[in-house]
């Protein structure tokens, strides 16, 4: 009987180093926002960055930029924690003042989407608002943070 085994293409060491230098700190900040535990976040950083680097060559060229792709990859890997532990309470995270620019509702919506991948419809149902209102609040929260950084 013939069996097919997935042959995971491997990344060059220079790619790993490049990925690490460019994204490791950003990814650890992002994972910490989800996991809320520094030690666990570091463990997840290793497994996620290893997995992504190993699979990166195999994936078709994405329409997203690398950071957004990496963020979504991390979010999907951490989805179980996301489901078990998540409430709509904004996360405690070192946001460098970014989240302080937002009001409570915007912070709640932004964190639920950014860290936990909650959809507009899920949030609308949970918060008892219209989907358009949630979408609008999300846009406003991102706009505020972009303006806060002078963009």
């Amino acid at each position: 009987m013939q069996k097919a085994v997935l042959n995971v293409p491997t990344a060059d060491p220079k790619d790993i180093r490049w990925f690490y230098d460019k994204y490791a700190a950003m990814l650890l900040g992002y994972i910490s926002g989800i996991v809320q535990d520094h030690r666990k976040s570091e463990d997840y950083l290793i497994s996620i960055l290893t997995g992504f680097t190993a699979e990166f060559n195999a994936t078709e060229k994405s329409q997203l930029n690398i950071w957004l792709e990496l963020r979504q990859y991390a979010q999907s890997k951490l989805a179980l924690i996301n489901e078990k532990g998540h409430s709509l309470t904004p996360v405690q995270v070192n946001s460098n003042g970014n989240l302080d620019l937002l009001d409570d509702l915007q912070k709640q919506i932004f964190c639920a989407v950014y860290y936990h991948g909650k959809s507009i419809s899920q949030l609308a149902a949970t918060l008892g608002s219209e989907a358009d209102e949630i979408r609008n609040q999300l846009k406003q929260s991102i706009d505020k943070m972009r303006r806060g950084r002078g963009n």
Partner: protein
Amino acid sequence: MEIKRIIESGLIETYVMGIATEEEVQKVLFLKKEYPEFKDALTNLELDMEVLAQGMAITPPPGTLEKIETEINEIQRRSQVIQKIARPNSKPDNGDDAREEKYIEVEAESNQMRVNKAWKWIFIAVFILGKIFLAAAIYFYLENRQAREQINELKLELKQK
């Protein structure tokens, strides 16, 4: 303008945050292709999200890169071992078949056998019939033995008379 209204609608934010529906994703990809203004807005937001993440970054502790390199090397080593076992005589770079690039063929032999479910009822019927024949055989054996004993008794009585 219509495209400005779409840019301001929050569609790009939903897409970049990774929560767009399939329909919205297709719309974004179409608009990105058709409208340079939309493409610029999308690229700017993607870059700004990256800058935002840089602002929230936490420097990993020393030794993290080494741990990642060790794990990557382990994956590479295991992958090479699998390739050697699977294709001992073939060149690694021939790759003319797209399927072969993604999969490697491994010989495996199972000690299990697949049987049609209908056989279950046939086996049950054979088992029950076997029990019936066994009971009948025992019954007729005993009947036969009893009849022989009676014949012998009758023969004995006749002789005595």
